């Protein structure tokens, strides 16, 4: 007869039964050592089926559920089953713990703790499909918004003016400071850049053409759009997303309010109105920045600057820039609102969607701008 022994566990055979005697404290804190004893025992001991296995707890000092689980696993290793294990010598408290664990544990198996990992090909496929589905969803949501806007134009009374005004204040009035600051600095930097090149040819006066056209046609619309994507698009996604999470959006539907009318359209209207206005502010401030640099480094006085501006700057340039702004605004608002409405039922999703709004809006604005550049070039504007 073999008698493998460890500190925690001894095995003996009595009357054809296998007796596993537990010693010392069987607790979570020493779980690793306990598991090792059970392993060691099983390594030295051939498993024999058909024998009755008895757990002896008479020399046990402490037991908790993790300890009981390990003790019961030694029963299974010796060929017994949890259903038929018999316990002897346990004091009341320990017996209750062991019985509860034996009852609840049933059969054991591997459990995956992490969600299943996809192989790279599956991932490419699932990301592509998700991207395509999202694109379809975006286009159809854009359609919903446009048809909502169209029906609002037919019946202006359905527009929620108060909500529009609140949103307008947030996206336009509150953004004036940051837009002015950024555009002033951009104007100055662009003017420096031109000044350094123009000076070589003594064509100082052309700083006016360069700065004003660059600001009005490209820089101001693009940079204002990027600021608003970061400032307002993300806010739309976060606001609507947390309302969705809090079931406020569902409550609205139940109360017969359309989230499209209450949440989405006012934000779109506010942003579409705000963007051209802010772009115009950006134009003016940017050109002012250029004027300062022209005066200091190129000896073009503000008076000369304005005179040249009237001559060189056709309003076409201004309208090109201002006509792009509402389109950018529409896409930023639509992406922000859609991302808000598609927040899933967990807090992490709000953060993910907010970030995605900013990234997608900026990419979208740059793509649209490239499209505009081609179209205006072909039209010769």
């Amino acid at each position, binding site marked *: 007869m073999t008698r493998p022994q460890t500190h925690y566990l001894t095995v003996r055979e009595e009357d054809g039964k296998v007796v596993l005697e537990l010693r010392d404290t069987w*607790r*979570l*804190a020493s*779980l*690793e050592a306990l*598991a090792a004893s059970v392993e060691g025992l099983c390594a030295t001991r051939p498993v024999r089926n058909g024998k009755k296995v008895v757990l002896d707890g008479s020399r046990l000092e402490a037991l*908790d*559920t*993790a300890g009981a*689980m390990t003790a019961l*696993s030694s029963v299974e290793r010796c060929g017994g089953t949890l259903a038929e294990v018999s316990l002897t010598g346990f004091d009341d*408290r320990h017996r*209750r*713990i062991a*019985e*509860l*664990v034996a009852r*609840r*544990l*049933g059969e*054991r*198996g*591997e*459990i*995956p*703790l*992490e*969600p*299943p990992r996809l192989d790279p090909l599956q991932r490419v496929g699932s990301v592509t499909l998700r991207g395509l589905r999202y694109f379809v969803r975006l286009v159809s949501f854009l359609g919903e918004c446009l048809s909502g806007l169209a029906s609002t134009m037919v019946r202006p009374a359905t527009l929620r003016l108060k909500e529009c005004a609140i949103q307008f204040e947030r996206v336009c009035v509150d953004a004036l400071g940051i837009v002015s600051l950024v555009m002033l600095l951009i104007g100055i930097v662009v003017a420096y850049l031109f000044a350094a090149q123009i000076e070589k040819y003594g064509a100082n006066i052309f700083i006016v053409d360069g700065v004003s056209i660059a600001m009005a046609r490209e820089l101001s619309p693009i940079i204002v759009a990027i600021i608003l994507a970061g400032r307002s698009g993300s806010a739309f996604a976060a606001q609507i997303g947390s309302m969705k999470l809090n079931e406020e959006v569902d409550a609205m539907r139940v109360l017969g309010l359309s989230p499209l009318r209450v949440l989405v359209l006012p934000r779109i209207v506010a942003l579409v109105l705000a963007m051209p206005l802010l772009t115009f502010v950006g134009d003016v401030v940017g050109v002012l920045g250029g004027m300062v640099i022209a005066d200091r480094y190129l000896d073009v006085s503000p008076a000369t600057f304005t005179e040249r501006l009237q001559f060189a700057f056709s309003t076409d340039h201004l309208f090109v820039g201002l006509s792009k702004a509402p389109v950018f605004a529409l896409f930023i608002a639509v992406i922000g609102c859609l991302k808000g409405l598609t927040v*899933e*039922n*967990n*807090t*992490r999703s709000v953060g993910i969607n907010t970030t995605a709004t900013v990234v997608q809006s900026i990419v979208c604005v740059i793509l649209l701008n490239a499209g505009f550049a081609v179209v205006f070039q072909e039209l010769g504007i």
Partner: protein
Amino acid sequence: MSGNGTTPIIEVDGIATRFGRQIVHEEVSFAIEPGTVVALIGASGSGKTVLLKEIIRLLRPTAGRVRLFGEDIWSTDDERQLSRIKNRFGVLFQNGALFSALTVGENVALPLRESMRLPPELVRSVVELRLRLSGLDRDVAAKMPSELSGGMVKRAGLARALALEPELLFLDEPTSGLDSINARAFDSLVRTLSDSLGLTVVLSTHDLETLEGIVDRIIVLGERRVLADGTLSEVRSSDHPWIRSYFSSRSE
């Protein structure tokens, strides 16, 4: 409930709580013996959750002392002493408070991974044990908390609270938001755990059936103090108007 030489596992001594000019508790004192299931009841706004938070050291009371396992938890800032105390109790928050970025299994494994070094296969088997003890199947482990029903969220939260073999369990409204079948099943689960593992359970509740079913002792909070304290029949026989209307409005 006092006596036979055992030291109380929780002692709340003269707790007062004020938020600005609003007074929540003035003089709340009680002691809880190991192995009992105690319910905190009281009207909404009577400060049950606030009191629980003060006992588990989330919110500092304005005055008074709280002792857990004989140690005054508000008199020390020693991280190691506190984490030793914190590993001896588990908390089930009202809405489960499962971390939404982790699977259920990872949620339960988190306290194990944080406070002890165990090989992954042992963590996995302890997680399975916890889920089983809380009455969940093991395939729940791979799910995200957002995929669970309300009852399963509570059970998963309980599994996480049980992760480190606590001696003391705090349950904040464990049966709120559950249907009555699920609520009773959860009650009997709590009672089984308490009986088998010798757990001390402190729960706040509005559920009269929980009180009738599994609770050894009831502490009634109201009017900024403890209105009544005792077994169900003792509390029921109190002639305080709120307690009388509480029991009469629900048991008929």
